[in-house]
């Protein structure tokens, strides 16, 4: 049926909607008569708040005082739509469509209501100090969480729809006047290229992989967060946040390397402690990436670096085991990764049992059976524990850990030095939307990269990201309150 607009007769409307929407079980077609004419209400059960429909739509239409004008009767805000396609899309998004005899328009009322998770603390980004709210799967809740932190008219939320079959709602959040315009333009360009060219956008991960220009790099230039305060801090520094309906993970673009080592808590704590924590995390990153490779290099090539007492204990430990040191370390690393992945997937009830079994098997039994030696277990345990200090750099650490292990086994200290060279070259050449990810080490930005100066001294926004409006408002803060 080639219908260009909404039909006048209710029966035709019903036929049209059934044709467009199909025969799903959860589709509700409620045709009824009012005192002045027929009416049809179409919605999807499960996506709407039936109490509100009853109160704001059905009751006024069915009442004896109904005067024949549905626009005056329907109590909730609505839109008139003449286009059939738009009407269908609205119904699929959870709106209620009201048709009236002779009206030739559909009234679309937003009466959404469905089961959703409440705002909780995210599991992966726990903090001691600071807000504990995390995003949920509902994009409107998420934007409201951001709005409550940034109450300015400059906060822009742009809407995009992506995915041929999912029509996922995607919001871009940024602050007009601070945001880096070319990054924003580039982002919009890449997002519109996705558009309807893909079947589905179910999570921000899909978006991330489509807009990522560094597909093979261990570290991408796109950050992920579940916390509204992280998003707020980022967009105040000129970045853009991408929210996607159906997932609590938001993307932040562009993301510098040091952001993975920083947490929002660094800004809520005081300067010296925050700086010490950052340095500790950087040290943890160094350990988790380089310790296996470095230890293999020293133990098998450059034993002269070790004090002789330590060397004797390593020798006597490795005399009992069949494998070379490098093989032990990679075996233990793989076993640890198995444990970690299993731990993420298993049900909470058996979680502690598996951890005990895992650590007992690897730690005690393997050593006692003479399969691996104690120094290797210690090295891998340290590596594993340090890897949780910088969770955002997990894949980076994993890939480069293997890389350094290979080079350490092949060429000792020289191999590690060469690996460092290659790693730095690779990191330096990664750009996130035109911003090099290692640009936190420029002179202006050093106040907030590896260490964090007191907030009073941090007068500038990051120069590499923000192009205009670089100066923050903290310049008016008097510094006369005394020093250390």
């Amino acid at each position, binding site marked *: 049926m080639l219908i260009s607009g909404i039909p006048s007769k209710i029966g035709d409307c019903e036929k049209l909607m059934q044709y467009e929407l199909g025969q799903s079980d959860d589709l509700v077609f409620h045709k009824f008569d009012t005192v002045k004419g027929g009416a049809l209400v179409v919605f999807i059960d499960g996506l709407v708040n039936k109490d509100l429909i009853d109160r704001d739509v059905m009751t006024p239409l069915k009442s004896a005082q109904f005067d024949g004008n549905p626009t005056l009767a329907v109590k909730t805000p609505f839109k008139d739509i003449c286009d059939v396609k738009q009407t269908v899309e609205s119904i699929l998004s959870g709106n209620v469509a009201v048709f009236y005899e002779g009206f030739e328009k559909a009234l679309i009322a937003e009466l959404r209501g469905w089961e959703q998770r409440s705002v909780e603390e995210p599991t992966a980004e726990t903090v001691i100090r600071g807000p504990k709210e995390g995003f949920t799967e509902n994009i409107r809740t998420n934007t409201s969480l951001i709005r409550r932190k940034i109450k300015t008219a400059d906060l822009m939320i742009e809407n995009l729809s992506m995915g041929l079959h999912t029509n996922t709602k995607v919001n871009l959040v940024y602050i007009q006047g601070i945001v880096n315009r070319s990054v924003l333009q580039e982002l919009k360009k890449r997002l519109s290229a996705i558009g309807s060219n893909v079947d589905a956008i179910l999570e921000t991960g899909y978006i991330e992989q489509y807009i990522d220009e560094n597909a093979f790099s261990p570290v991408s230039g796109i950050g992920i967060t579940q916390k509204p305060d992280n998003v707020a801090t980022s967009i105040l520094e000129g970045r853009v946040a991408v929210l996607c309906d159906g997932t609590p993970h938001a993307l932040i673009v562009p993301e510098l390397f040091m952001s993975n080592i920083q947490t929002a808590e660094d800004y809520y704590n005081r300067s010296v402690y925050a700086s010490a924590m950052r340095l500790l995390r950087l040290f943890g990153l160094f350990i988790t990436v380089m310790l296996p490779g470095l230890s293999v290099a020293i133990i098998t090539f450059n034993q002269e670096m070790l004090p002789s007492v330590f060397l004797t204990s390593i020798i006597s430990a490795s005399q009992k085991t069949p494998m070379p040191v490098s093989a032990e370390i990679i075996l233990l690393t793989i076993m640890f990764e198995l444990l970690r992945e299993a731990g993420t997937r298993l049900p909470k009830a058996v979680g502690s049992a598996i951890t005990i079994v895992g650590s007992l098997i690897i730690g005690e039994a393997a050593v006692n059976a003479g399969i691996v030696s104690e120094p290797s277990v210690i090295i891998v345990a340290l590596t594993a524990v340090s890897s949780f200090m910088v969770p955002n750099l997990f894949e980076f650490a994993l890939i480069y850990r293997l890389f350094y292990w290979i080079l350490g086994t092949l060429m000792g*200290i*020289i191999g590690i030095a060469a690996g460092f060279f290659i790693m730095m070259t690779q990191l330096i050449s990664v750009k996130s939307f035109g911003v090099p990810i290692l*640009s936190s080490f420029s002179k202006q930005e050093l106040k907030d990269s590896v260490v964090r100066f007191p907030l009073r001294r941090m007068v500038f926004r990051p120069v590499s990201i923000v192009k205009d409006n670089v100066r923050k408002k903290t310049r008016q803060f008097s510094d006369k309150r005394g020093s250390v």
Partner: protein
Amino acid sequence: MTKKPDITRAQLLCMAVLSSLVFPYTFLPILNSPPANQDVWIALLMSFVYILAINAPLLFLMNRFRGMNINEIVDTIVGGIAGKIVIIPFILFFIYCFTACLLITSLFINIYLFPGTPLWALLLFMAVPMCYTSYKGAGTIGRLATFIIPLILSTIVVFTLISLRYIDLNVFRPVLAESTFAQLNLGAFLTAARYSEILIFFVFSYFLKQKDSINKTYGGALAVFGISFFLILTTTMGVLGVDFAKLSWNPYYVFTRQMDLFGFIERMQSLNTLAWFPASLLKLTLYNYMASYVLSGVFRTGSHKYFVVPIAVAGFAVCLLPVMNKSSTVEFLRSDRVFPYIILPVIFIIPLLLIIVYLLRKSKIDPLIDKAKKAAERADAQLEEAQGGSPND
């Protein structure tokens, strides 16, 4: 032409310092230059005057011809086929330096660290990261230099501080009694002639913004290099004694072997290796890139990438020749009988000739210079305006 990469003054300074420190870190050639006794530190101090004198022609050319790269400068002064011929010594010199550094580095590793490893494996091992970085271009090399320089400078400072306990200042006496003025000057001149890093400035000054001063960067690089070299030399001499230092193939490495910290951290020469190896790789990368860059200008290909691997392979092949793969050959090549005399024509004589030709043809060349300068200034201004263009450190 691919988009011109930008480097900052700090990056250029770091590149020049790193490249110049690799050889002192590796074999301290000054110990065997005249007067070859305890007064070599005086020769070092005197050599800075000679460095300024020897580098003056190139500094003049760089300052006068801002906005033009090396190919354009030579083409403008000596156009046509002659220009191509004049630029060949530069290319050959870069390739020579690249090969020499490759040979010296791999031989050092072979002698001190890994005697059983065959030379081809070492060369391959060095060639791979070097080609990868050279591929990425000047911007990456510059930024990489800023990350590697803290490694080397901090190891120099740390070793100096630790060695204070072991230094015997009597090693430096009698001062000036056993050296003649002529010997000191000759030693200073030969040391100055080894400072080929002026060519790094010559090639990379094109990538600097117009408002950045080359002279200040050059001065800064020379100062940092001077202080570091002085520290390396005096601490090595003070701890090892002049005679033993002269006898060693790598005095600084032997010096770091003597240190111990708190009685249990001993044999810290691995710190030395960890700092030195990335710096050597960077020096190799720099010379490879410069040779590729100049070649790409000669053959007018868009990008330098085509020449990176062929130059590396050529260096590889030369190092594997039986006649090259010997300690005695390397000893000969790096000595005062060869190295300074290869560098001098390229950094002094040819630039001097170029200046003479420029002065003769001044009226024709000056308008071209001004045009290039204005074009460069415009490009810089565009870069400043454009938002999100690659920002610099």
